[in-house]
């Protein structure tokens, strides 16, 4: 509830809130453009057939950045009131990453 500053006057509040929302929407559009850009980059990088050692970390990094955009801008995790959701999401992520790590290291045959 980042944008809940009450003046007591609904009209003023509304105007203020609309302005805030608009601003936020701007950020969201910007992050969307960036995401599209990153996606393009990732596809182009793969199309360009560079070394695997270089490309894999780069495209994963780009996916992570995009993921952060989604979570923080589109899903509003940057807003207040998302402490518990982030705690649980990141715990889930931690468990998931350990799983992935295990499956890519100790299952090798």
């Amino acid at each position, binding site marked *: 509830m980042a944008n*809940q500053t009450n003046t007591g006057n609904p009209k003023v509040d509304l105007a203020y809130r609309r302005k805030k929302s608009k601003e936020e929407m701007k950020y969201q559009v910007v992050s969307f453009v960036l995401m599209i850009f990153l996606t393009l980059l990732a596809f182009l990088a793969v199309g360009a057939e560079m070394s695997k050692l270089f490309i894999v970390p780069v*495209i994963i990094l780009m996916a992570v950045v995009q993921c952060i955009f989604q979570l923080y801008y589109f899903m509003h995790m940057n807003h207040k009131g998302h402490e518990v959701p982030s705690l649980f*999401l990141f715990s*889930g*992520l931690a468990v998931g990453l350990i799983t992935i790590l295990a499956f890519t290291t100790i299952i090798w045959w």
Partner: protein
Amino acid sequence: MHTEEKLTAETFPASPEKATLEGKNKFLGFWLFLGGETVLFASLFATYLALNDSTAGGKTTQELFDLPLVFAATMILLTSSLTSVYAMYHMKNFDFKKMQLWMGITWLLGLAFLILEIYEFNHYVHLGHTFTSSAFGSAFYTLVGTHGAHVFFGLLWIGTLLIRNMKRGLDLYNAPKFYVASLYWHFIDVVWLFIFTVVYLMGMV
């Protein structure tokens, strides 16, 4: 605040999804569910990564994947994420019509994505890469297919919401429902980010 109160733009709260206790519960419960989904998909990704070379003599990822198609699908899904953001934007502004409109566009984009995916799967099956042909095949279809099933379920869900609330207008009873549905949609997009990166792009390098 009572759930069914008729509201105006002025009285509509800034975070309608969390204005009632039911809304708060739904909001939190859904985020927790997404935490669980994260682990679910991580397990599927892990399985896929452990098996993606086990083609049992069948076609490898390089021989199989068609990047332009995946690129198109990615663009569609990413865009649908933005359109659902627009829907939420209008929800906060208490503009029910526009919200419905953008949600509807999201729905259509989702459908387009699903059609592309079905087309893609069909294509692979004709190349001899099937669910039962190798462990790689099983892992591939299970991972990507589970995502597809999520898209499908999302379409059912959003579709139901749109139709059910057509006449009702926006209130604090259905605002959390729309909000949560849009969270779900974004989450599907997040998963897809990793599918196109890990499955398709990494499969091609």
